[in-house]
């Protein structure tokens, strides 16, 4: 690199590190986005330059649900294998977040303190991230309807992914979810190495049919409805099109013997390349089984030993708000982020598996990061709560909409408590708990951050950037 370029890069790194420190000192925030924006403005080639100096390359992880958890799990696996990881751990998943992670892990001379980059990437940012980092591995988890007000239509996101895959270097490995028909359709023409993953079985799936929220009922090739022999989650499962024959391919990495232990985690055996890796995780729910299977697939693609895969998955703690346990004045509360229909349905199933008559707190916001449109609440099967929930406390900017949804789901007004104030809602829900019971908190993204701030003031959780 020419001297001028070096100087700009050094200035960008210095500015980013200074901005990150200042941001934390002044408690302006986590310092996860702004430093990268500043750095990229000073040196536009920063992300490409720094990521090319990571000895073991870059892994990008994208998808509607599970990015943060999959990245965390993969980070644990890589660290168990002795690798130093550069990771946008706090979930800032636009290019600015990636730039922040890289700049804050670089010396002023541009040497990387870390061997492998691990970045979760917003679905819409994937083409730019692929172009900038030339990743060694790309992990595509799933595509669900989410924040349609921001992206317009799910097919537009799919089109962006198609563009990202078109610029993926041919030697890069594509790790993708074989059980998601839309994702699999995008990936099936990839010329380079692929490592598809999927679930061979799913507990509680017997007789399960597609949900109202399912997005991919009709074949992406010919328009006929898919036939399913197994529905695992949302529109995912073992599918086949009776028209053109497009079908789930047998994945190279599969999870078998899946057991769900309610809110306390899950276990399975991951089978790949003739090796069986028994795994267990404290992360609850079937969606997390997908996430750890994806992480295992990516690790194996990087040549990590199976023993490290099992150890890393076992060591994976929940990311903030995603199965996180917090103290609520001497009672336990479980934060389960619920931001779109498929995810919300799975969270509800997890709660009901854990508790026969739970007290639930649902917090619905409609800020930009949540999606300003809350129509999706009507695609969630809240009817599941009708015969079981002892009480549902609702809060957030759209608490009244949530209460209305519960009314039409068949919950009488005596079981639905509207409390706009977040702290008040926590107190109210806490007062309804019986001895030994746990509160289930189901928030959208910004509602989760808001409730976490209240809990942090009460000393119950840590700030997410310290996490």
């Amino acid at each position, binding site marked *: 690199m020419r001297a001028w370029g070096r100087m700009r890069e050094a200035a960008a790194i210095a500015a980013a590190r200074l901005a990150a420190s200042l941001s934390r000192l002044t408690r302006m925030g986590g310092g996860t986005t702004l430093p990268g924006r500043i750095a990229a403005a000073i040196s536009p080639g920063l992300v490409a330059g720094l990521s090319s100096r990571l000895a073991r390359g870059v892994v990008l992880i994208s998808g509607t649900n599970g990015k943060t958890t999959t990245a965390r799990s993969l980070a644990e696996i890589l660290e168990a294998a002795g690798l130093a990881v550069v990771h946008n751990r706090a979930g800032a998943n636009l290019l600015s977040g990636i730039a922040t992670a890289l700049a804050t892990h670089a010396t002023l001379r541009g040497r990387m303190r870390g061997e492998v980059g691990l970045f979760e990437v917003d679905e819409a940012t994937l083409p730019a991230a692929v172009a900038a980092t030339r990743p060694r591995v790309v992990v595509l988890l799933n595509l669900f*309807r989410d924040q349609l007000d921001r992206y317009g239509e799910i097919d537009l996101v799919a089109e962006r992914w198609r563009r990202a895959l078109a610029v993926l270097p041919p030697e890069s490995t594509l790790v993708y979810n074989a059980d998601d028909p839309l994702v699999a359709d995008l990936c099936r023409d990839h010329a380079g190495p692929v490592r598809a993953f999927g679930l061979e079985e799913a507990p509680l799936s017997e007789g399960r049919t597609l949900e*109202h929220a399912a997005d991919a009922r009709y074949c992406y090739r010919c328009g006929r409805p898919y036939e399913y022999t197994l529905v695992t989650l949302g529109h995912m499962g073992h599918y086949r099109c009776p028209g053109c024959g497009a079908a789930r391919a047998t994945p190279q990495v599969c999870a078998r013997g899946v057991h769900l232990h309610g809110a306390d985690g899950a276990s399975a055996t991951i089978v790949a390349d003739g090796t069986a890796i028994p795994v267990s995780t404290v992360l609850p729910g079937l969606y997390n089984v997908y996430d750890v299977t994806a992480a295992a697939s990516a690790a194996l693609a990087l040549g990590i030993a199976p023993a490290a895969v099992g150890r890393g998955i076992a060591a994976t703690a929940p990311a903030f708000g995603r199965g996180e346990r917090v103290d609520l004045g001497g009672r336990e509360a479980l934060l389960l982020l619920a931001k779109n229909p498929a995810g919300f349905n799975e969270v509800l199933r997890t709660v009901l598996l854990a508790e026969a008559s739970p007290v639930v707190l649902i917090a619905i916001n409609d800020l930009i990061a949540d999606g300003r449109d809350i129509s999706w609440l*009507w695609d969630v099967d809240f009817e599941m709560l009708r015969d079981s929930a002892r009480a549902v406390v609702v809060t957030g900017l759209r608490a009244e909409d949530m*209460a209305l949804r519960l009314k039409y789901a068949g919950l009488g007004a005596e079981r639905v408590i509207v409390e706009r104030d977040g702290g008040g809602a926590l107190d109210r829900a806490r007062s309804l708990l019986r001895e030994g019971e746990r509160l289930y908190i189901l928030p959208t993204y910004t509602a989760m951050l808001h409730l976490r701030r209240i809990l942090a003031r009460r000393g119950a959780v840590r700030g997410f950037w310290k996490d």
Partner: protein
Amino acid sequence: MELRICHLYPDLLNLYGDRGNVTTLVRRAQWRGISVRVIEARLDDPVDPDASDLFFIGGGEDRQQRLAAPDLRDVKGPALREAAQAGAAILAVCGGYQLLGHYYRPADGPDLVGLGVLDLHTVHPGPGSRRIIGNIVVREAGAGRILVGFENHGGRTHLGPGARPIGTAIVGSGNNGQDRGEGAVWRSVYGTYLHGPLLPKNPWLADELVAAALRRRYGNTAGGVALEPLPDVEENRAAAAAAGRAGARGLSWH
């Protein structure tokens, strides 16, 4: 007394919580002691114009709309036109709304010919154009009742003389972002861009559809067609909160 609802393409045109509308119609009839039958009509299923008095069509993405359009026109079209002429109630949202018009011209690809039940056409101004997205509040033409919801559409809809708008957008854009008109009405056929769960927060429209459907089956003289009022406490609170989020304040609720 029985309310007979036909839900068209429940698995294809169901983009934004559309089924919330059917849930609302069903519950509000049941709360009044009216029994309800819901018939689902998917691709290739024929529709019997006498078997249902209330039809609902939701929205979909362009891909789904392209799958539904020929089926709606050829398989179900004649029956739907006949039912509409005979006074059946129809509610069509977003993509379904566009398909009730004469045609929809997508951003790319050929025109989709619609049913022509509503005198309107829709044009997508091109792939680079701005989508109309956001909270919307509409004041009904005539009685001045309020509709609240969310709109999210690329197409611009223009009404002909045979249809009138449901109302005027006080907040938001409505049919085309130009004339402030929102939706279209002809007889008991309603089309609107207030997508997804429109009826839960706008129970007066739900009741109007139910009443129209019962009138068609039982006539005005059958008694009991005038629907008993429901308390609608949660409905009104949610509507007021939504209007507040949309930036409209000081409106009265019915």
